[in-house]
């Protein structure tokens, strides 16, 4: 007698999803599936548009990380123009990307995941939310707000007060930095760094409490994919693709981003609208890899900034050896990256060249295929366009950061469900852990239709005849 448990919608994530747990006759877990339940079709409806519209169009893919799409799209356009953008433009683009990373990671840690981390997986769902955190940890909650504010202010200072800034353009950026803006941004960073370090120090004291979760939350042998600098260090804007295996061996290195298709294949399954990217040489579904903060830190030789490098060394001490395997430590990695982002923005803003007025290379399209890759907060974001002689888009491929993690997320919920779910007596805390492992990845599922929080959720345990044998309801 097989049974199925459905968790729908998955809460405190970006997007609409469902989890089903399929149980065997003895209540044993047979399979766990993560379903993306909405279809959007961005790649198709971009066809026929002028390539210069792609940054604006694809930015609408996401209300959370539009800056990431704007950067990847403009990099693909740079490729179509066959230009190398001015060095100052590259630095300015890096700053806006790091500001985006800061505010996005802050949202994930402080507002989406902190209720579980601070109030407990088994706490009453009525109070296990951001208001519960505000009541018990008001200073931490204020810190989260302030970090988001700092990131958002820098984005607005550079890009204008828009959710979808148009300051980044093919060939560079549209406007050079002014001294006034530079000073204003520099003023924000020491406070941001102080908050980031304080939060990191606090979280370090919590980590030992989560030994069990760290052992079961997506602790799996996978590959790790990310950009790295030519020296193999942490990179979010450019550089080369690196792929490391679970033992820490570098499988692919110094791969130019326009060769991504040599590494990444894309499969589809009938239970989800999300693609299943995989490492091509290992085939599907064996070629599981993870992207995002965990992968970036696992792949990087160093961060290249003082405090982040100390934190990176401590990150590697979470495990005896090798790349950090547990997806639970995405949270830790996010905090390290916030520290890095704030330090690096400070460095870039103090760069003598940052005020250079030459910030845009101008050209017409000089090839018919362009690829742009950047690290979004959630992982490696790939934009690939083909255009005709009139510069109109004929084909688009987008591999969104969350998509790369699809296989790994499915494996992770299976592991957590096997460890925590007692099919004979469902408890909310069990299912919250299944959801929580997904939150570790901080997925941004539909990149626009976003759901989380106290949405109604009914979880039913049914027997093979469809009889409800147990249920949980969240209103």
């Amino acid at each position, binding site marked *: 007698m097989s049974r199925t448990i459905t968790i729908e919608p998955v809460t405190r994530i970006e997007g609409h999803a469902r989890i089903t747990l399929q149980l065997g006759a003895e209540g044993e877990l047979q399979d766990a599936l993560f379903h993306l339940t909405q279809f959007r079709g961005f790649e198709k409806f971009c066809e026929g548009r002028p390539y210069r519209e792609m940054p604006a169009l694809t930015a609408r893919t996401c209300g959370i990380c539009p800056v990431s799409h704007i950067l990847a799209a403009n990099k693909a356009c740079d490729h179509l123009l066959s230009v190398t953008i001015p060095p100052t433009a590259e630095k300015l683009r890096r700053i806006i990307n790091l500001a985006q990373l800061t505010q996005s990671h802050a949202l994930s840690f402080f507002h*989406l995941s902190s209720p579980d981390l601070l109030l407990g997986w088994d706490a009453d769902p009525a109070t296990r939310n*951001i208001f519960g955190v*505000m*009541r018990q940890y008001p200073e931490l909650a204020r810190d989260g707000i302030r970090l988001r504010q700092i990131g958002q202010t820098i984005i607005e200072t550079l890009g204008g007060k828009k959710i979808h800034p148009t300051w980044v353009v093919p060939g560079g950026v549209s406007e050079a930095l002014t001294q006034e803006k530079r000073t204003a941004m520099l003023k924000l960073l020491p406070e941001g760094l102080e908050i980031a370090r304080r939060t990191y120090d606090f979280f370090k004291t919590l980590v030992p409490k989560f030994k069990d979760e760290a052992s079961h939350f997506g602790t799996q042998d996978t590959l790790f994919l990310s950009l790295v600098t030519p020296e193999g260090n942490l990179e979010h804007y450019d550089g080369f693709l690196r792929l490391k295996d679970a033992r820490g061996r570098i499988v692919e290195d110094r791969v130019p981003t326009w060769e991504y298709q040599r590494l990444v294949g894309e499969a589809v399954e009938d239970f989800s609208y999300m693609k299943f990217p995989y490492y091509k040489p290992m085939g599907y579904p064996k070629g599981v890899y993870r992207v995002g903060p965990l992968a970036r830190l696992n792949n990087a030789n160093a961060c290249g900034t003082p405090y982040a490098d100390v934190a990176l060394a401590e990150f590697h001490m979470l495990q005896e050896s090798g790349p950090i395997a547990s997806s639970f430590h995405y949270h830790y990695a996010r905090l390290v990256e916030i520290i890095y982002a704030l330090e690096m923005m400070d460095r870039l803003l103090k760069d003598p060249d940052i005020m250079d007025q030459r910030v845009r290379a101008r050209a017409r399209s000089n090839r018919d295929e362009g690829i742009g890759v950047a690290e979004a907060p959630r992982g490696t974001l790939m934009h690939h366009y083909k255009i005709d002689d009139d510069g109109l888009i004929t084909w688009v491929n987008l591999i969104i950061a969350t998509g790369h993690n699809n296989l790994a997320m499915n494996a992770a919920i299976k592991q957590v469900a096997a460890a925590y779910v007692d099919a004979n007596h469902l408890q909310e805390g069990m299912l919250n852990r299944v959801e929580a492992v997904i939150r570790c990845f901080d997925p941004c599922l539909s990149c626009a239709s*976003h759901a989380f929080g106290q949405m109604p959720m009914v979880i039913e345990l049914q027997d093979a005849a469809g009889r409800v044998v147990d249920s949980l309801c969240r209103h």
Partner: protein
Amino acid sequence: MQPVDPGMTAKTLIIGYGSPIRGDDAIGPLAAEALMAAPLPREVSVIARHILTAELAAEIATAERVIFLDASVTGEPGEVRVQTLAPDASALSSMAHFLSPRELLAWCQALYGHQPAAWLVTATGQSFTYAHCRLSPLATAAMEVMLAEVQALIGRPAAGISSPASSRNGGW
């Protein structure tokens, strides 16, 4: 639009929000942009946003009163309403990055112990079509009414802001 008398104004934050590519949903940010271009007392600041995000709580915490400008789907197209708003900590948003005004006020209250007087000024939209970047004629006309309502709220003396009971169309 008549400028208000400067000098008597409480520190006021105006936040217009909505999607710029969903037809009349843009009325909030467009009204905010119109206010930015108008002469306003220096105590009044205006923000135009696509959505309401958590960090706005910190900005609200510095204001004595806050006025939200939004489009509405209820009522007759073109209808303008002014409602008072109270914080609501139970209004947990279903969107990770999109809070409701009352939830945002609750964040402000919980985090900063501050509860500004708050209003929501809405105009009922006629069309919310995707990829539509113009207001309908009814919404365009309603925006003028919205702006007049905002000016009236701004013009209230600072001493009167703690009891906004005279707002039309009730409150939440």
